[in-house]
């Protein structure tokens, strides 16, 4: 085989392999992904057995520890629909009532089982200070993070 033809064959094989691998990546990402829903969307759309990523605020007075099980409810950012979650696994330090959390859940009966160690607490926004009354530049307060 002449060198030019050899190079073409090699390039074709390499590109075909790349296309196959990229297709696998794209297919598995769509099939393995958990839809991100708000609590109100979750109550309407959730099907048993499928996992969803729910984002909402922890409802005040809903947090209860029972051994290693953590019960809490999340509600839409704007309030309204609440969803009860039964969770086991690592609880991030910033987790508390009123804080925005993201947790992967599966529907079981009327409740949602949180996947182990899937609870994420968003970076605390409590550091957002009230807008200064007489600011000499800029607006809004600083937020913390790295």
């Amino acid at each position, binding site marked *: 085989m002449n060198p030019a033809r050899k190079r073409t064959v090699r390039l074709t094989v390499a590109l075909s392999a790349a296309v196959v691998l990229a297709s696998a*990546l794209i297919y598995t990402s769509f099939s393995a992904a958990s839809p991100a829903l708000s609590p109100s969307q979750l109550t309407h759309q959730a099907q048993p057995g499928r996992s969803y990523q729910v984002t909402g605020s922890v409802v005040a007075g809903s947090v209860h520890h029972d051994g290693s099980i953590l019960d809490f409810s999340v509600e839409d950012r704007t309030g309204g629909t609440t969803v009860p979650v039964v969770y086991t696994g690592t609880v991030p330090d910033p987790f508390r009532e009123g804080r925005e959390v993201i947790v992967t859940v599966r529907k079981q009966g009327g409740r949602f089982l949180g996947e182990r160690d899937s609870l994420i607490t968003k970076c605390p926004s409590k550091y957002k*200070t009230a807008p200064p009354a007489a600011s000499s530049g800029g607006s809004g307060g600083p937020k913390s993070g790295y």
Partner: protein
Amino acid sequence: MALLGRACLLLALAVCVYGIGASLYGVRTGRSEWSESGRRAVYALAGILTVAFAVLEIAFLRDDFGFNTVAGTSSSTTPTFYKAAAVWSSQEGSLLLWAWLLSLWSSLVLFLTRRRLRDVAAYATAVLLGFGGFFVSLMVFYATPFATTSPAPADGVGLDPLLRHPSMMIHPPMLYSGYTLCTIPLAFGIGALLARRVDAEWIRATRRFAFAAWFFLGIGILLGARWSYAELGWGGYWGWDPVENASLMPWLTATAFLHSLMIQEKRGMLKMWNVSLVLATGTLAIMGTFLVRSGILSSIHAFGGATLGVPFVTLIAVLVAASIYLVVSRRDMLRTEHRLDSLLSRESIFLANNIVLVALCFVIFWGTYFPLISEAFTGQAASVGPPWFDRYTVPLALVLVLLSGIGPVIAWRRATLANARKNFVAPLLVAAATLIALIGAGIGAKPFAIAMFCCAAFVLGSVGQEFFRGVRARRAMAREPAPTALMALIRRNRRRYGGYIVHIGMATLFVGVAASSSFQHASELGLSRGQSTKVGAYTIRYVRPTATITPKDDRAHTGATLSLGAVLDVTKRGRHVATLRPSEGFYDSGDPSQGSVGHFIGGQAVSHVSMSAGVTRDVWTAIAPDISTPQLKRVIDIGNKTIPLVRPDEGLLAIAYMARAYLQNPPQAQFHFIVSPLVMWIWIGGFIGFAGGLIAIWPAPSTVRRRVAVRSSARAARSRLQRA
């Protein structure tokens, strides 16, 4: 002070605009004095931003709560060490740090190239000042660090307790140094394309900066992992969080570039690939900065309510479009000078290593931005979790480690059978011996971990063999003792042997990752005083509770009002192993609505992890004490009702009473125990790797001698000219 800071920013913006204009005018008209002036504008920018940064740092150290940034991220009770670090904990302060570091690194590279690459450097100056101008504009128009409030509040809200960890003092500056250094090869790459000088000269001029970017970014990532492990209370060091991924992506492409540039230097190949990698690395660094500030993806590290998305998206779009246009329009100049002679050659292995690194970067990019991709295609945001990332990254990491063992010993151009036999027998024997030993020890149930151990053994075998042969050759020639020969070997070829040490470090790091993730024992449960539990081979007993109050007694010196914890006795087969003291710090919320006592502990609660770290395993413990018992709540309720807000000393007395009540009658506490083998080797591997990186970056004695010789002969020539 704030006025001075704002004046500095306006002046810095003017300097950037002038410098861009001067550099471009100079290079387009061939008037080098204008290009020189543009370069000096970068030095001026560094000076001005140094003053601005000093102003903000002084404001933090002096508790000047008139500055909104100081009031928002510091307080009078924040320990001084963390006040200094709080400068970059806010959006505004971190932008200033970014711009300041960019100006310093830009000044250094332009100083070092002041007599070389005049056209390329002039364009690079304009690009670097463009980045500088962008970040200064953000601070002038969107998020100024020098915004003030009058009258100033009496105190600030304090630094997020989660950020009160020693590594946070150096993690962000390291990461930002890495990001800003990534823009230097990008600027010179664009400069080379614009000036149509795409030989290896611009790569040689910025190679050390690309290495420095890799080095600092790597240290930043490792320190972040260490912080996550020691501070976040979940016992992990990597969670595929978008912000973590954002820093890893440019590091991967920089690693690929550092390998492939050797092929361009030696054989004039991969020019287009190299310039594309440089442009991708710089763009990914900007995207990493953007991810933290845009709020487009949920991350525990992102700045809350960030609003800088539009300017960043515009910058990234311009960068991507310009990069594609430049590479496509200069494709004829970027044609390779040679072709691969054989698939079994060092060039091919380096190319394979590049493909794996870029594939890893692509996988991580896809997974990180998948919520946006999914929303664009299906109208529904969805995200992939750590198992999806692991499915692809684990096999790719295995191939990468294996290639890092093959690369150093395979021949350039074409490997023969004799070459293969000579170089691969010993490493393969080491890998086979490792496999037999692991199976003999009954560790065979985790195939990926076993494969990683064998690949790492292969790397140690191949790199060890290179060192052994080098030392043996030097001993034969110079009759030196082995340690002297080893030092001389490394000193004489820092880049090559520094690179080998990096390979050893990375293999060691991957052994730590594979072992700790595959053979970990974890337990989360509630224990009362005197109870014990088994975690792996260890028995952990809750001996007694602990309680400390006021920042003064806080063992971790992070400013917690109250720390509740436990003394744990760790034994293995009845033999004492360690005494651990995990605790949880409760911080002042500064919110009077929580009551005169309640606010003292109403803020963030943060785990202070306690662990027994060793070379074979870590025993990691965290505690979540229950302070919601009726007895403890009663203390707070009575305190809130009877103690006025204006008597904080009495409020603290109530907290002390609460601590005593907790000690006398401790409720059941939640514990998180993890026994992970070989975690220490992640940090050791990282340390070895970056020590190797430092050796590789350090100028070789011959280079230094050559520079001194060039300088002295230039001086001599000048004086001869003057005399004449």
